[in-house]
């Protein structure tokens, strides 16, 4: 049973690492203009990961509730991170995308909330990075990885830093949505409405409409297709096959004005969001890695390691190693305590040890029972 648990935990850890790669690829695929085929894989993989982590969260939460540890799991053992990085992403991000892919549906331009929703989702998605904290224990080579105190401290400070970044992004998206901070989506969709109206001014005649569309499309690269309402396409930027190969639902917007339908390329907006997403993602990953690999070893060196050595020296009578005191840190409280341990406690312990106690046994009672059973 324990081995099954360890195997499942290993699967979760692998999934955590893969989902981070996926998060980066998700944005990169948009930035690099991947084809529909490649991006569809990303969408399906995202759905798979979110389903996996939703099941994982629900299982953990159920087990915690069964043991009356639900509150402890959710708040103290960072169950809220598991929650944030699973159910909301499934319901708001991967599932709608997958359904849209299945239905082949597009978006209607001018719905101002789309971009903000996307940004909120991307911000919440960053919470996935916090799962890295669970992977820390795998890095046994890291100096502090075996110290629960160092792990707990670094987890807390990392969670605070990433949470602030995520919450700030969420807040900024909300402020953009209500107009406190000007966003790029408003001018973008307003421009589309104006250009659709300008194309409509050419009248219903296909030839005039096509000429007008071509003239405006020459200065606006986001105009993709113009057609009479319910009628034939009068102008198109690309051959029909190109749309099938490079446009997913959500990559284009649609406006109807005066009996004319205009399809716009929404990808420049998505590219802008993806670029921001990658920059934000990399910044957060670097923050987390800096805490894990730069700050945590320093914490271990300056706090938890000396305490560990002193604790062993006090608990084990045959453990008499001194605490190493870095000269530049000698005035830190911990090292002042360590200096007392070295100069007062250990010599006293040595004297007591030479008054009849002798060294403590390296053997444990359990060792002896095992030996007796075998003899």
């Amino acid at each position: 049973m324990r081995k099954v648990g360890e195997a499942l935990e290993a699967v979760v850890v692998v999934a955590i690492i893969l989902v981070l790669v996926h998060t980066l690829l998700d944005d990169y695929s948009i930035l690099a203009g991947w084809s529909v085929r490649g991006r569809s894989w990303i969408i399906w993989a995202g759905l798979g990961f979110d389903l996996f982590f939703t099941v994982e969260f629900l299982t953990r939460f159920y087990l915690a509730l069964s043991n009356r540890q639900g509150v402890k799991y959710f708040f103290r053992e960072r169950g809220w991170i598991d929650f944030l990085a699973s159910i909301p992403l499934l319901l708001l991000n991967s599932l709608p995308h997958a359904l849209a892919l299945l239905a082949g549906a597009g978006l209607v331009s001018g719905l101002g909330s789309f971009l903000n929703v996307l940004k909120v989702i991307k911000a919440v998605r960053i919470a996935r990075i916090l799962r890295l904290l669970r992977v820390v224990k795998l890095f046994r080579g890291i100096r502090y990885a075996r110290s629960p105190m160092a792990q707990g401290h670094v987890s807390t400070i990392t969670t605070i830093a990433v949470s602030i970044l995520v919450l700030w992004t969420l807040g900024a998206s909300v402020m953009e949505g209500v107009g406190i901070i000007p966003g790029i989506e408003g001018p973008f969709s307003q421009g589309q409405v104006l250009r659709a109206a300008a194309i409509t001014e050419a009248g219903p005649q296909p030839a005039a409409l096509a000429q007008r569309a071509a003239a405006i499309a020459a200065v606006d690269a986001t105009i993709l297709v113009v057609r009479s309402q319910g009628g034939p396409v009068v102008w198109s930027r690309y051959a029909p096959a190109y749309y099938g190969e490079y446009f997913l639902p959500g990559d284009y917007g649609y406006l109807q004005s005066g009996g004319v339908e205009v399809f716009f390329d929404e990808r420049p907006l998505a590219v802008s969001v993806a670029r921001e997403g990658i920059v934000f993602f990399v910044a957060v990953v670097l923050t987390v890695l800096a805490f894990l690999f730069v700050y945590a070893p320093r914490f271990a060196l300056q706090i938890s390691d000396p305490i560990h050595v002193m604790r062993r020296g006090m608990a084990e009578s045959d453990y008499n190693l001194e605490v190493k005191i870095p000269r530049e840190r000698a005035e830190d409280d911990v090292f002042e305590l360590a200096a007392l341990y070295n100069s007062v406690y250990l010599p006293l312990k040595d004297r007591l040890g030479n008054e009849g106690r002798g060294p403590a046994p390296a053997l444990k009672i359990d060792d002896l029972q095992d030996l007796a059973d075998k003899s």
Partner: protein
Amino acid sequence: MRAVDSTSEPVSRFASRLLETPALRALAALQKEEQALNVLRINGPQLLPVFTSLGLDVSRGWREPAALISRAIRGNVDRMMAAEISDLLSARLTFSFFPAVAGGRQAPARAKEELRALISRAAAHPVARSALAGSLAAALSDIIEKYIPQAWERKKYLYVEITRVQRLALSPADLSDLTRFVVLVRPAAYLSITPGETVDKDAGYAPLQEQYLSKILPGIASQARSLPGALLNLGLRSTLAFPGAGSVEAVCRLGAIMSMRGRALSPAVVVDRGADTPDKSWFNVQRRNARWHGLDGRMLDELYTIAAENGW
């Protein structure tokens, strides 16, 4: 339940396996014994199930079965120690120092056997056996060879005390050999101590008096006739406290430090992150306790510096 049987096969097997457990594997035989007996002494009452598993009679408490196992442990350790001493005398002690301290003559052929007999007598005496634990561990290790060449290069306190004050014209290798000899003779100083009902493990490390040593020297010298009395006396005088009533030769002071260090040697010790190295830690603690143990503080200072410089 079988009656207590001193030849019980499971007990003997248990003692043998106990001494070979990973926790003790890297230790010298007498250090293993000390650890094994300690665990019996400290945890005796909790070990009744263990004694029962071995088929021992526990109806009268834990002391009888524990004593039986202790005897089996000592028997095993005696055999292991005999092998260690043979190895030591054949490969690690060459008496290369002998001509320099015995007027140019080579060590007699019987010297090693007489030393072996002296060590064996110490091993059979409860208090001297305790002293032998540190001495043997130090003599079997490389700790003496590690420090003396370094001290010779430094040409400071240790070098000056040996060459100018004690006037011993020895190479580092010969001084290492002499120190090993001193360390091995040292337990013989406790042969005339009457053990109490229970032997204090530190009895073999308590400083002795010069007058007492003068009294026991003839008796010890009579059992090792091929070894000069002055040479044997160096080993005995390593038990004197420094600074004491009189002067103590530098090689004796060094022997005392090495014997004490040998007692605390643990080759398999894992140095935790944030901890100092074992030698450096030990010498630093002993610098502070030098007077308490009657060790030479300045010599400890120098050995501490050598340990610190070399990361030992």
